[in-house]
């Protein structure tokens, strides 16, 4: 007996993998046409590399958000504030570490030991550790004091984390006694110098480092979530908390860990952002947070690799849009968000129904 079906494309065309491959191929063809007509090749490569670095920074923020928002369904606006805190703490400790003891103004302060006069590279690594620790600590505090009572209540999470944004931003202003809107690095955190691909095209060493960090974070978190026992417990806990709890795992503690990890990743994103732009500003957190939300939604909630693909897409397209249409450069990401939510609300790789 023949069952009546809705008319539509044949089954093989509805396979999401095939669709993805087809759209990537179509995108590549479009890019080739674009290079041939609109822009010179070295310019294109420069934009592309800038876009890659931007994607890496964006991915670091979005990866934390993908864990917190995509996986655990917690709408965390304080993520951006943690990002800003990470960047500021990084700059502060980097500046302290690279001040030589002889040049120190106040030798009696309790932080005098930090003024070791280190070279840029070890100072960066130490400051990175401090920034990450502060990020994780802030995340842990937010989880313990607030989010823990509000799992499953998105409206209250939004309100509460917005209140936290006000508190964190204002305390940042007090802690770093900000009068000027920006806060800069004393010296460049990386040895200057470029890596030349061809005589025309040079890449900054710090760009390469940031892209590598992005890749490492992607691989390690992917492994943690999908190939390790811990990841199994977390994914199971999201699906059915009570069942996993009944099997003897303390799901609460695992969620706490995920939240702290996500916040540390936000701080890492902030640090990467300050390194690329040689300074930090108060508003950078909120700006990057909105973009990261878009990235997570484009990639699909709950899909970690989706967040990576979304970050690549947004990061690579934005410089070109900014180059051609300056008026909508700021709002491009927002337009993208609206389009994605209207056409495919579950995102590219999302299995969840919005």
């Amino acid at each position, binding site marked *: 007996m023949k069952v009546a079906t809705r008319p539509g494309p044949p089954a093989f065309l509805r396979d999401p993998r095939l669709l993805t491959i087809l759209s990537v191929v179509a995108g590549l063809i479009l890019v080739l046409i674009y290079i041939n007509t609109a822009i010179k090749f070295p310019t294109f490569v420069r934009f592309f590399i800038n876009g890659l670095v931007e994607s890496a920074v964006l991915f670091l923020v979005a990866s934390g958000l993908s864990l917190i928002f995509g996986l*655990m*369904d917690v*709408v965390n606006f304080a993520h951006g504030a943690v990002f800003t805190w990470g960047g500021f703490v990084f700059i502060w400790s980097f500046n302290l570490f690279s001040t030589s003891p002889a040049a120190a103004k106040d030798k009696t302060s309790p932080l005098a030991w930090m003024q070791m006069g280190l070279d840029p590279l070890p100072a960066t690594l130490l400051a990175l550790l401090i920034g990450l620790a502060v990020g994780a600590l802030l995340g842990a505090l937010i989880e313990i004091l*607030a989010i823990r*009572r*509000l*799992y*499953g*209540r*998105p*409206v*209250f999470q*939004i*309100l*509460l984390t*917005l*209140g*936290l*944004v*006000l*508190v*964190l*931003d*204002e*305390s940042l*202003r*007090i802690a770093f006694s900000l009068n000027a809107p920006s806060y800069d690095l004393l010296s460049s955190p990386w040895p200057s110098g470029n890596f030349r691909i061809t005589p025309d095209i040079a890449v900054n060493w710090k760009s390469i480092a940031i892209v590598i960090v992005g890749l490492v974070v992607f691989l390690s978190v992917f492994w943690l979530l999908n190939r390790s026992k811990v990841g199994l417990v977390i994914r199971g*806990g*999201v*699906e*059915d*908390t*009570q069942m996993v*709890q009944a099997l003897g795992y303390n*799901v*609460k503690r695992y*969620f706490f860990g995920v939240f702290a990890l996500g916040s540390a990743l936000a701080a890492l994103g902030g640090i990467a952002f300050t390194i690329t732009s040689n300074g930090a500003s108060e508003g950078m957190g909120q700006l990057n947070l*909105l973009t990261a*939300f878009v990235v997570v*939604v484009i990639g699909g909630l709950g899909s970690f690799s989706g967040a990576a693909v979304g970050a690549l897409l947004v990061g690579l397209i934005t410089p070109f849009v900014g180059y051609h249409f300056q*008026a909508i450069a*700021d*709002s491009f990401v*927002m*337009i993208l*968000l*609206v389009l994605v*939510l*209207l056409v495919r*609300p579950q995102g590219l790789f999302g299995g969840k129904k*919005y």
Partner: protein
Amino acid sequence: MINVNVTEKGPEAANFELSPAARQRLDKARLTALRPGGRLGFTPAGMVIAIASLVLLVLPMLGLAQTNTRLISQVLIFVAFALSYDLLFGFTGIFSFGHSLFFGVGAYSVALCSLNLGWPMWAGAILGVVLCGLLGIFTGFVSLRVQGVFFAMVTLAMATTAHSLSGRLVEITKGDEGLSLIQAADAPDSTTVYYMALILAVVAYFGLSRLINSPLGRVLVSIRENERRAEMIGYNVLRYKIVALAFSAVIAGLAGMVFAFRNGIVNPGVLSTDISLLPLLMVILGGSGTLYGAVLGAVVIQSLNFTLSSREFVESVRGWAVVGPILEHWLLLLGLIYVLIVLFLPYGIVGTWRLHRHRLSGFFKKAA
């Protein structure tokens, strides 16, 4: 006992930690907003508000300092704004995060029509009302297909886009510098603005009260309570939500216009996220789903804002230990108020009162 509860979703999720009896009480408390006697809003709370507005009506005739006139008009503007938000959030259950879009469009339409086109104020105001209504319908049409957090994010995206455009289109809006309405010939003086704000707030209160107690309003509340069921009964939920959004947009736009007159200047700040956050906080603090809750929240938040960010207050707390530095920074304080309200007063002042009222009456009965 398992406390973490991630999988529970839907309208019930908001009060899952309450006992069944408490939940029943809360439902009953929320639904008493619909009372046949309150068709025109002349419930006890409505009477209080009517008397208060009469007092406010005669106040300027008894002589009122100009600073106080401006102060009260700002409170009244935000009362109307919070009421418009309550229609969406409290009664229809739509969580918008970009309400500043309508507020800002209202403000900008008056300023742009009068300064760039040379229109009289009333023409700009009419255009603004029409524009806000259409914008509400458009926004609803585009973004109400997605729900919950995602609707909030789409509206946030729209408001952010409008905010960045208003800063970018320097030739039209003069960018961050803003448009000064004081230059306009027919700019109203502060007493006129006061009466405009008063009329707006009173009409918004009693008009919304009438709306909510009409068949339309009951459908909106049924959508809040259980959207699926309302759809199954046969109501076109999307259309009703769009109507609610359009009404709310018009009132918010009017509030934005009076705000523009009151400040005498319109800059991209009227479209910022901070403006979207204020009515949300007011409605949550007062108690969502009750009109007088929104009024209460707006009055409390605005008076806190005025007293706590005033120079006298900041100077008086400067010397205090520990709390001094916190009290000095209004934004820090506002953030803490937010967090404390969400954690300890999630149903607002009115909701909490209704939840615990029986204890009080029990106590009095025991005493007697």
